[in-house]
């Protein structure tokens, strides 16, 4: 039951963070210029009409009052409507989120599935051809812009070779390239971290002890070294997931995936404040929950982590 208490505590700790995040965002976005009421009503509207709408939207109230009103609405699951297109933000977000979450999850799975074995293998066979090859791959992937890699791969694999669909969603093939592209930088991190971590662990005394007492190399690797070397890597997965959702905006743009990325970019371009606000709050909550899950997984991998602390 200890972990349940811990999880609840962490969830409760998320509340002040969310309040702080919304407040900071609210202050930042209040600097957006232009009269929203004027934009909505158009140039033909009279001064009175604009003033009436401003009053109706509560825009003539002080910042703090608007913030409190916004938070009360949020607690009632009302994130408002888009200033530009007029859609309800919450249902629109809920409709788009699965695409983003799917691509991000697949990309992290790809990075973990390929990166950890490759990192561990290059640590065990340090200074081998495999090690140098994977180090080179890490250098490349870490310095390539995702939109560039994505555009080039799209041209090569989708348009020229016609192996994969160019864009959109529909079949599972549509998700292959976007996930790989989004996962590319995470892959670099995973390879590097699991390699470094494994190299640290295999120098430890207890590995020498295990070897001295005659344990097989396989047992040493899987039983003693792997579990310990994976702890920092698992923590990194949570951080990568957060970065992945940010990166998804770019990937969704290249492959025309109808996730939250397109919604956010249009909102930023059109200065659609409630949409930007709502999207970022949601993403922050999701990232917070994922980090919590990752910490719980860490505790399963590493029994030394004490929930009571």
């Amino acid at each position, binding site marked *: 039951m200890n972990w349940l208490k811990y999880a609840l505590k962490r969830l409760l700790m998320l509340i002040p963070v969310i309040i702080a995040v919304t407040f900071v*965002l609210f202050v930042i976005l209040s600097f957006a210029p232009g009269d929203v009421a004027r934009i909505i009503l158009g140039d033909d509207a009279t001064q009175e009409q604009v003033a009436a709408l401003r009053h109706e939207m509560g825009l003539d109230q002080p910042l703090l009052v608007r913030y409190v009103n916004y938070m009360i609405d949020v607690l009632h699951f009302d994130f408002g409507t888009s200033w530009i297109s007029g859609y309800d933000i919450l249902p629109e977000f809920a409709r788009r989120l699965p695409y983003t979450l799917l691509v991000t999850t697949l990309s992290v799975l790809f990075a973990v599935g390929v990166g950890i074995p490759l990192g561990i293998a290059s640590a065990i066979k340090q200074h081998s051809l495999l090690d140098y090859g994977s180090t080179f791959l890490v250098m490349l992937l870490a310095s390539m812009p995702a939109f560039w890699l994505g555009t080039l791969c799209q041209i090569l694999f989708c348009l020229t070779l016609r192996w994969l669909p160019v864009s959109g969603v529909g079949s599972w093939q549509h998700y292959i390239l976007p996930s790989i592209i989004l996962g590319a930088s995470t892959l670099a991190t995973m390879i590097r971290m699991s390699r470094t971590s494994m190299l640290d662990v295999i120098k430890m005394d207890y590995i020498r002890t295990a070897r001295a007492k005659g344990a097989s190399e396989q047992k040493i690797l899987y039983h003693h070294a792997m579990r310990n070397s994976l702890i920092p890597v698992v923590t990194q997965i949570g951080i990568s997931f957060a970065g992945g959702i940010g990166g998804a*905006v770019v990937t969704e743009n290249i492959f025309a995936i109808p996730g939250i990325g397109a919604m956010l970019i249009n909102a930023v371009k059109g200065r659609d404040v409630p949409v930007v606000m709502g999207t970022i709050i949601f993403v922050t909550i999701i990232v917070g929950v994922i980090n919590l899950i990752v910490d719980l997984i860490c505790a399963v991998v590493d029994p030394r982590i004490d929930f009571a602390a």
Partner: protein
Amino acid sequence: MLRKKKKPLSEYSSWELVGYRFRKNKLAMLGVFMFMFILLVTLFAPLFVPYEKVIEQNVVDKLQGPSSKYIFGTDELGRDLFARVLYGGRVSLLCGLAIIGIAFVFGAIIGGIAGFVGGKVDTILMRIVDALMAVPSALLAMAIITALGNGVWKLVIALSIAQVSRFARTVRSSVLTLRNMEYIEAAKCYGSSSFRTIIKHILPNGIGPIVVAATLTLGAVILSISSMGYLGLGVASPTPEWGTIISENKVNIRYYPYLGIIPGLCIMLTVMAVNFIGDGLRDAFDPKSKN
């Protein structure tokens, strides 16, 4: 002839040791040369090609591959890609350096105050930093762009704010570790002022991890600038910027690959050079972390 005798390693000061280890690192030195080359070539761009070429349209010469007349070829509007890439590099690099500089200064102030003053001030500042760090930095930058709008300087401000929290954290933890060191206490005992303590004792000892973080962040920031340009949220066409150049040539890259490959390679090589330097500095400041 009198020759200056080489000092043995054991007599090196800690800063000389850092320099020695850095110079011994081949990848780091390669990074320095690559970065200096790219920086000098873009800064002295007017020596190679006049700025007018960046916007001058020669429809007759449109979409020509690399040749002796156009080293990098031309785009759809007949603009010289070499000129655009060269002047675009100025925007990408100078913005990147400006962002790191601003984030560094403000991060140092916030983190320094939080670490030094402690107590309530520390709690309040760190709660704000926590809030900023809970939001993925790309999204935070987008929120700020929503408020400020497009443009080179606005992008610089947005990305700086998105990075300040990271620097504030690093600086604060450096200060917290150093604050309780005995030599700091000793300095205070013989009457060193707070200002002197910070400048003479804390700064030289705590700057290492901060410089490393700054260098490694520079690579990430250069990537962010170009991604924003690609998404149409950063530097807007016709001002050249590496990401913007790729974005404006998107439709033509398939049949004229040089339009995409050349600016992309520029981004990649720059980021790679910066990362080499950052990794080299990290190993030089903390040789134990080396594997």
